[in-house]
């Protein structure tokens, strides 16, 4: 699935806001087609600024960004938004139409599609996101979760190759997070590249294969999520805390209960504990005999 030539190449990129805040400093990054990648770090680390450079909302002061081997520095936001779809944190920053259907239509208008194609896409996307029942309702009367779904739908309907989510799990209940996880899996199967900014460590540890850690405008770590989040030094640098599974496994190591170091997910831990309890209980039974 992942090819050798990066889909996104960020080279020596730096950006300073007009008020003098240096948001990005010498950023170098490769992101490959079909990757699911997380960006983590404390507030003000430069995560949102970095993703804003991908569709031209921020033009770096220096450096270059290539998408599909093309330098995007001179491309318009309108052109880039067809390739890179950014779904922002607050859905109420974009919902404005009279009905849910019109909200989706607005996103499709700039793609030069025929009326029939637009209608077909609207039907498909509303069905896919289970929003058909709200078709004629005002987007402003939807619940928090439904409005977030609509905001995501209004970007995914444009079929961009790269999907960028800013804090997708924020304020979402368990079912909504599950829906989101299914959605990113389906989009990945279609070959989409997905970038997720998140503060949700448990979510990242469980579902994101690769993570970039940022601090003070720099990338301080880039690699498999489990490796990065097991690294106490990097965790400290990025102002994060260790995932619960990691904390539990460290506590167990101190009790000499868990010698091996290959517990990297909730399921690993559940299996380990199950086996441990089984072996202990069979030992108790043997002792009783």
């Amino acid at each position, binding site marked *: 699935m992942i090819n050798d030539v990066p889909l996104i190449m960020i080279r020596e990129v730096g950006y300073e806001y*007009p008020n003098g805040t240096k948001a990005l400093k010498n950023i170098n990054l490769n992101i490959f087609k079909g990757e699911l990648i997380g960006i983590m770090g404390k507030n003000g680390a430069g995560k949102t600024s970095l993703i*804003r450079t991908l*569709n031209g*909302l921020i033009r770096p002061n220096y450096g270059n960004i290539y998408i599909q081997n093309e330098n995007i520095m001179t491309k318009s*936001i*309108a052109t880039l*938004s*067809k390739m890179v*779809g*950014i*779904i*922002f944190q*607050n859905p*109420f*920053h*974009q*919902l*404005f139409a009279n009905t849910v259907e019109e909200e989706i239509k*607005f*996103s499709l*208008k*700039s*793609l030069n599609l025929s009326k029939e194609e637009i209608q077909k896409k609207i039907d498909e996307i509303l069905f896919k996101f289970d929003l058909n029942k709200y078709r004629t309702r005002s987007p*402003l009367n939807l619940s928090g979760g439904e409005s977030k779904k609509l905001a995501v739908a*209004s*970007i995914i309907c*444009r079929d961009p190759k790269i999907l960028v989510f800013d804090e997708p799990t924020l304020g979402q209940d368990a079912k909504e997070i599950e829906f989101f996880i299914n959605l990113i899996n389906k989009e990945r199967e279609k070959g989409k590249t997905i970038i997720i900014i998140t503060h949700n460590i448990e979510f990242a540890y469980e579902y994101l294969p690769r993570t970039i850690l940022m601090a003070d405008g720099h990338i301080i770590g880039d690699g498999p999520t489990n490796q990065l989040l097991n690294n106490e030094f990097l965790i400290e640098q990025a102002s994060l805390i260790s995932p619960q599974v990691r904390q539990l496994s460290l506590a167990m190591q101190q009790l000499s209960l868990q010698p091996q170091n290959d517990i990297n997910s909730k399921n690993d831990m559940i299996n380990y504990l199950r086996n441990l309890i089984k072996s202990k209980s069979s030992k108790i039974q043997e002792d009783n005999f």
Partner: protein
Amino acid sequence: MSLEFLNAFKFMKQKSFLHNLDPRAKLLLSVVYTVIALLFIQIIPLFFIFLSLIPLVLLGKIFKQWIKSIRGLSFLVLFIIILNTWFISLSFALAMVLRIYIMVSAFSIFFLTVDPNDLALSLISMKLPYEFAFSFSLAFRFVPTIANEAQNILDAQQSRGYEMQKKGLINQVKNLFPLLIPLIINSIKRAFYVAEALESRAFGSRKERTYYYSIKYSLKDYIFTFYLLVLLTFIIFIRVQINSMPDFLIWSLPV
């Protein structure tokens, strides 16, 4: 598109002669300059009045932000010049532009150098009910927040193919809906949240209040007020006697 222009009215804490003045003295400055700008329709007096604001801008160390507010008026200025030249004359158009610059500069100086908390206190000291004074300072405090939100809305809409520039006046007006509707709705929602937050902290439970900070009219405020009143009297005198003043004061362009 950048909405940086709104930042030209955002208070920034720093030490300067203007920042140290009492907010009431600065409010008087804005009022006096607005009044004297309205007294004239001749270019030369308005130009001198405008020039007299520049030392104040320098004293307040707010030159950069002031320039931004002036630059932010470009579109309006163009509109004023075209309409007034079309219907009246270029001289009148330039006078109107100077008038706008004076008023915006005077209020820009006020907003850039007055802390929103002091503003509420000064309004209360002018016997305005606390609720009104507080609402006013709250509105003032939310200007940069709304500017920031407007930028976020613009970013979110551009991320799904929205384009600012469209041909034709009707299309341009229609094109503002995706920005204005979320902005208005979020502002109304925020107003409710703020009201709830205030009520949960017993806002308005007692009529009589005490204040943590107090403001006092000091000697430099009295001197500044005196200067403003002398300026106002002098300008009114010139306005009344304008016909007996040197000719250059009433000079106007031939068109």
